[in-house]
């Protein structure tokens, strides 16, 4: 039976925990708003880009650039795992890592070589335990704040295309958390190299007319593809950032509520113990008086 003093201390400590989780929840909510706006704002560009690519690749056929047609092989896979930089976001990072492990497992079962590149500290921490030997690079998101996602995405895109050109891998798959709504983030695996237009990209009905290209189709494809890849990375990053904050907000909301429940339970216990003590003292006094 904890003493009254112990109970009092525990109540105080849970109360301060609740204050912290409450503050984290509010910070996450504010950041979520911003991240969500950024993710929404980037969608028109990404979807337009996808439909342009769909149009182009439909007419380009098989002879397109390597970024589109691939190396003709699929022996070496690069898995790019995108997680958050910080924890305390519920199951956010774990879900992405779990999805990555599943993909890695499948690929290895098929006898493919797997290489891993992680973005965000949490993914590296969780994956390096098991797959340390497959890591080729890690990118910290520490320096990425607010507005410069674009620069970062372009940088990552460049390094991926360079590695592809150097023949380091045949297929690159991006694993990230897609932001569906505040309560649901879906861990998604998306192939980014060789590039393919998503199946749901809208293609335009030309009504029998023929597209004209200036400069040539190939030149356009060659400038478009790296950008398309960058765009996909950027939107994945923005979705992931929004998902992280959403997940953190939900997790902290739960934590705050749990702390509240705990405080209620502890206060009840405290009050009972105090009352028991008072009753005990009264009985002692009364029985003492009777004895006299």
């Amino acid at each position: 039976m904890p003493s009254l003093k112990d109970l009092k201390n525990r109540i105080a400590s849970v109360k301060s925990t609740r204050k912290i989780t409450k503050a984290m929840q509010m910070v996450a909510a504010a950041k979520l708003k911003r991240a969500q706006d950024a993710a929404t704002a980037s969608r028109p560009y990404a979807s337009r880009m996808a439909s342009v690519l769909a149009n182009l690749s439909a007419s380009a056929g098989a002879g397109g650039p390597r970024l589109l047609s691939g190396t003709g092989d699929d022996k070496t896979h690069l898995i790019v795992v995108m997680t958050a930089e910080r924890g305390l976001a519920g199951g956010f990072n774990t879900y992405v890592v779990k999805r990555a492990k599943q993909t890695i497992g499948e690929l290895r079962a098929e006898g493919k070589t797997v290489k891993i590149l992680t973005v965000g500290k949490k993914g590296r921490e969780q994956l390096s335990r098991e797959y340390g030997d497959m890591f080729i690079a890690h990118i910290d998101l520490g320096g990425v704040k607010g507005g410069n996602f674009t620069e970062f995405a372009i940088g990552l895109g460049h390094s991926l295309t360079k590695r592809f050109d150097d023949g380091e891998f045949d297929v690159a798959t991006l694993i990230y958390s897609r932001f569906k709504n505040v309560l649901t983030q879906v861990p998604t695996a998306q192939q980014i190299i060789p590039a393919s237009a998503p199946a749901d990209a809208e293609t335009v009905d030309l009504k029998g007319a023929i597209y004209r290209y200036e400069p040539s189709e190939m030149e356009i494809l060659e400038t478009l593809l790296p950008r398309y890849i960058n765009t996909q990375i950027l939107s994945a990053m923005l979705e992931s950032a929004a998902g992280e904050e959403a997940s953190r907000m939900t997790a902290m909301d739960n934590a705050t509520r749990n702390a509240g429940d705990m405080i209620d339970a502890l206060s009840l216990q405290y009050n009972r113990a105090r009352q028991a003590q008072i009753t005990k003292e009264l009985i002692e006094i009364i029985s003492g008086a009777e004895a006299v």
Partner: protein
Amino acid sequence: MADKLHFSLVSPARELFSGEVDHVIAPGTHGEFGVLVNHAPFMTTLKNGVVRVLEGDAVKMRIFVRGGFADITPDGLTILAEEARNLEGVKAEEVQAEMNATLLKIQALDKDDSAKAALQAHFDYLESLKAVLVH
């Protein structure tokens, strides 16, 4: 068929413009071109320059874009720009300040940092933007 051209201009950060206009003049890599409604399907890359949106004969809006693509379909014109800025309300001094900041960032990076190319492109964009503003 509508006698207005549906025009939208998007950059990775946001959609800058979407609506019905009369006429758009854009800077293609092979020269400026104008687009009216019912233009034949056409696609081209763009260079840094000013996209002009015309309402009748009057210029309604001027947007400075960096690179990207113009895609003309029977549905209208879509410009996908790497970067875009509405020229209205942009001041030369602000651009200069941004140029300086970008230059500092470039210098701070390693030689082979891949983000450097992106920053350099951004810098070039600001430089040409400033050139347009000064005139």
